[in-house]
């Protein structure tokens, strides 16, 4: 029954080794999904707009006239070198798209997560502690209703209330056009760039633009977290070690905070990894609603233009992110819970 704890390093190496099969499967799926559509991406995007010779040249340049298996190997090789291709419709390296628009999404999702964690975990802990009380029921209802609201509805309401009627908060874009024009983008994370730039008005403008989208997305995730945390708290409070701690005369407050809450949050960390998938899905909607020029927004645009190469590149990037996040979460989980390390 007794076993020594594996060091964190061994765990990390083992975990990374498991990543490769999953990554390979995802990439293969992406590759084949993008080739389900008949014809080739070049024709799909630009057919009818360019002479046939031109199309053929482009097809050759993009490698679409090679046999499928060669394309597959090329694709894998490209991904390994972090080359995500070049878009057909506006001839932009997908890597650029990822950096510029990706950081917009990163900023949005980061702050959304901050909102989600503080609201979700905080309220979830309270609800679990005060089980079946009025507070518990209202918190649960809040969580359920907020999750049931699509991002675009929350956005719609926000625009009605804040944009039109009261005019407190901007409802479109990352910053006002003037600010956007003037702000030098070192990191593409406007908040940080604004701090570097040092101008208070610019900083305020960026923050204001961030509030509505981040809160919208954050609240939706918070809805899920509330339920999760609450259930975990309920289950943890039944634990034998809780009773044992009380029997040693530990005061209730310490029992609740140090034993129950901490232990309840551990399974939540695991699930946080899955929330990232939810977060990214929600980001696509939120970006479209608030005209936030993130990567989800671009994906939709490229899809509408049938720019399959861009789509493939972006989706591949997402696949990598997913894998990365799941490994990270596993790592954090192992760090927190010593039982998990194999």
């Amino acid at each position: 029954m007794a076993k020594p704890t594996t060091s964190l390093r061994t765990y990390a190496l083992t975990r990374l080794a498991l990543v490769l099969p999953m990554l390979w499967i995802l990439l293969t799926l992406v590759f084949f999904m993008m080739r389900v559509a008949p014809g080739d991406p070049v024709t799909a995007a630009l057919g009818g707009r360019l002479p046939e010779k031109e199309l053929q040249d482009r097809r050759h340049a993009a490698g679409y006239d090679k046999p499928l298996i060669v394309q597959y190997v090329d694709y894998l090789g490209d991904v390994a070198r972090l080359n995500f291709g070049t878009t057909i419709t506006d001839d932009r390296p997908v890597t650029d798209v990822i950096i510029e628009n990706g950081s917009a999404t990163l900023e949005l999702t980061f702050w959304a997560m901050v909102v989600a964690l503080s609201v979700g975990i905080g309220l979830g802990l309270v609800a679990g502690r005060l089980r079946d009380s009025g507070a518990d029921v209202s918190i649960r209802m809040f969580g359920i209703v907020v999750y049931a609201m699509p991002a675009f509805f929350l956005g719609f309401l926000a625009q009605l209330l804040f944009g039109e009627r009261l005019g407190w908060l901007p409802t479109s874009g990352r910053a006002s056009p003037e600010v956007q024009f003037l702000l030098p983008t070192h990191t593409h994370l406007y908040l940080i760039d604004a701090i570097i730039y040092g101008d208070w008005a610019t900083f305020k403008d960026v923050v204001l633009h961030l509030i509505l989208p981040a809160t919208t997305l954050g609240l939706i995730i918070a809805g899920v977290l509330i339920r999760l945390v609450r259930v975990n708290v309920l289950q943890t409070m039944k634990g034998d070690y809780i009773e044992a701690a009380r029997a040693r005369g530990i005061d209730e407050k310490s029992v609740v905070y140090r034993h129950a809450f901490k232990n309840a949050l551990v399974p939540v960390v695991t699930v946080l990894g899955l929330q990232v998938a939810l977060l990214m899905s929600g980001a696509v909607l939120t970006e479209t609603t608030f005209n936030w020029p993130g990567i989800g927004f671009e994906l939709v645009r490229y899809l509408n233009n049938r720019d399959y190469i861009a789509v493939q590149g972006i989706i591949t990037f997402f696949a990598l992110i997913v894998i990365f996040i799941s490994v990270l979460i596993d790592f954090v989980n192992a760090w927190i819970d010593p039982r998990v390390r194999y």
Partner: protein
Amino acid sequence: MSATAPVLDVRDLRVWYGSARGAVRAVDGVSLQIRAGEVLGLVGESGCGKSTLGRGVMGLLPDGSAVDGQVLFQDTDLLKVSDRQLRRMRGPDIALIFQEPMTRLNPLMRIEDHFSETITAHEPKLSKAEVRRRSLEALGGMGIPPTRFRNYPHEFSGGMRQRIMIALALVLRPRLVIADEPTTALDVLVEAQILSILADLKRNFDTALLLITHNLGIVAEACDRVAVMYAGRIAEEGDARTVFSQPAHPYTRELLRSVISLNTTGLHYIPGAPPSLIDPPAACKFHPRCPDAMRVCALLAPVEQRLSAGQRVECWLHGPGDRIPEGGREPLEQEQIAVAEEA
């Protein structure tokens, strides 16, 4: 206060708790005493209320329980003190050792943290070094080396975890220790170790120990006195050797006969099953299963009697004769108890 005043004096304690089907009379009028340095074994079948008794003394009862009577710990009635006072007494004055060691330690906390939390909860002014010294001392007494002080619970075996639990219970030197089936979940060899540790307690620190178990062998080996519990009441109580050699209550007698040893040639059992605590039998609770039941046993609750050998017993077989009505001594006609009859 005389030198032989009991550490724990339970007087007519009742603990009933709520369930979907009605009130469960887990402890229905129990009185007992334990003196310093004395080990009292509390025996009974599963579901007779002995665990509830242990928890009731500590005040660790579930919501919806009702309690009355008196639980005097060195002159303080534990049932009347505030929650805060009671909490302060848990650890330094009274400690509880649980049955399943596997789940009683917080898996995310090191052993070191368990100890520092417990000690500083009651003595916040102690220096870190002192806390550490006391913890290691307690662990050392249980045979756990200091090198393992920073390990996590899952790195220990069941027996070791139980020893850690005992160390945790003892680190504040309580006057009374309640051990609720401490060895039931452990194998025989480990059981022997734990019992010898508990025996040391009495020798070295004069601790009073309430040892709750369903294992008569443990009682015989480790206890000074024994109380036999049935359906929420004490059937018989007295010096361990006396009770075992001259059991006064039919239940005790039957229990002893059911014990299996190398001399056993045929299995002996008490027909029927332990009674429901929600709807217990009238009068003497053992009468439906008692081979010596008399008519009066089904009519009137037996009165506690003190025997010449020093035991207390609740059984009409021992009188008082003047309370038994006319014809009460006639044997009771028992209904045939179906083998599968469940409480």
